[in-house]
């Protein structure tokens, strides 16, 4: 009986040590390979981290489904947007010729792009689905320049880990990791279904990440910042979404 309990004690002790060490090693590896999201704290942190880590391992290079032209939704739903402020109204009145996309942070050549400049780069299109976290979705042809092209133009530094992107609406900003930033389907979209991108759908310039839910596809983009840490941005959780209770990573 005493022998048995001693053996049990030793085995349990070893197992516990191995477990704790294993967790520690797993955490270190996850950090090293970029599998920990900026909003990993709090009671829901374990779930968010598991989802992000699992999907990063599965989907680093996967492509969102593209659809035939016949599946494009007849009317692309323009979701509700907060009332525009004067700066947006002024730019809209001028036909957005003065719209600027400023790129700064860990880049070799900080720059400010006009829409005409962005449109002079190789223009690509994708027919992908926009899916809202609420449950609805639509398919549209999105026309724009891949974000990776703009990042090539400004030259990102090797330590870059996130691209932070800002809407003209100051309450609306997001960020994505480099796997998404360099992904061929991540677009700065300025067109839709063969035309200019309507304001209701985020025009004149919208971020498109078809591998994540709609709220990561921020409308009215005016600024990109390349960084190696989200600490200095807002509450340091990665974007405005976690500050409002939503997940930073929205691939689900």
């Amino acid at each position, binding site marked *: 009986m005493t022998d048995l309990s001693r053996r049990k004690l030793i085995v349990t002790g070893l197992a516990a040590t191995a477990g704790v060490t294993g967790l520690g090693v797993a955490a270190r590896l996850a950090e090293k390979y970029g599998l920990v999201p900026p909003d990993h704290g709090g009671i*829901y942190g374990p779930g968010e981290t598991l*989802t992000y880590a699992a999907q990063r391992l599965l989907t680093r290079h996967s492509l*969102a*489904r593209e659809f035939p032209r016949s599946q494009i939704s007849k009317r692309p*739903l323009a979701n509700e947007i907060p009332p525009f402020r004067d700066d947006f109204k002024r730019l809209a009145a001028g036909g957005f010729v003065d719209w600027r996309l400023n790129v700064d942070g860990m880049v070799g050549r900080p720059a400010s792009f006009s829409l005409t400049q962005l449109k002079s780069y190789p223009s690509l299109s994708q027919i992908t689905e926009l899916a809202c*976290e609420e449950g*609805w*979705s639509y398919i549209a042809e999105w026309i724009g320049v891949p974000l990776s092209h703009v990042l090539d133009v400004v030259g990102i530094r090797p330590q870059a880990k996130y691209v932070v992107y800002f809407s003209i609406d100051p309450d609306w900003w997001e960020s994505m990791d480099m796997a998404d930033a360099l992904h061929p389907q991540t677009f700065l979209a300025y067109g839709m279904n063969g035309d200019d991108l309507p304001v209701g759908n985020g025009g004149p310039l919208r971020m498109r990440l*078809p591998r994540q839910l709609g709220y990561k596809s921020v409308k009215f983009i005016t600024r990109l910042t390349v960084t190696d840490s989200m600490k200095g941005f807002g509450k340091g959780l990665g974007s405005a979404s976690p500050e409002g*209770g939503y997940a930073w990573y929205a691939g689900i």
Partner: protein
Amino acid sequence: MPNMETLGSAEVPVGACVPSSASAVRATAPPSRHSALVRVTHSVTIFCFIALLVSGAEIVISHPRFYWGETGNVLTTPLFQLPIPSSRALVPTGYGYVLPDQNGWSRALHFQAAWIVVFTGVLYAICSLLTGHFQKDLLPTKANLSWRMLSTEIKRRLRFERPGEAETWSYNVLQQLAYLLVIFVLFPLVIWTGLAMSPAFVSAFPASATLLGGRQSARTIHFFVSLALVLFLVVHVVMVFLAGFRSRTGAMITGRTATGSEGA
């Protein structure tokens, strides 16, 4: 991997620690109705299911319309719409008010509970295969699967008959079929349809959505499978009350069951 059978059946009742004859206590202690594995995974599943149900309902409120196919939104015709108010002004509900948005924590809780219940389910499935729990306890015998047996059992349920002494130690054939349906059909289907709504997962496994007819079909099936699970839960709880709430829940918590008057 510990041997779950021994873990479950060699349960020594708490407080029965007579030092002189530990083995005698073991021999006379009543066997467990449920193994430790079943009891622990069942408890975890209860908590996760409640969390998933509440958070899932909350998420549905933000768009209580369902569609078939790949796409669907307020500009397209729904398959059906739940007659409830919504937490989004975008949805035409007929109600003059919009409920507060609770999707943030609901989504976080939904996915965290999903992770826990999936891990629990995998542990349960692997251990049950190793210990023979599926074959021994859940697989109906050929004789029990006959129409005569099945109709007898159905009639007994419809008469709200209390289960007999023998069923303290085994499941009846309807119970076995219901549990098999939940474990091998409804749970896998609810996980699959859930994953088919993840844009990242679908980018890696496009067939997970297209085989179901598209993203909106997956969402609609997810809703109906959840309803089926709620229906199972209601019947399950009614049956537990019928069989004796105290003895049955006691058996699920401690493994032991009182035999005799209350033991049915």
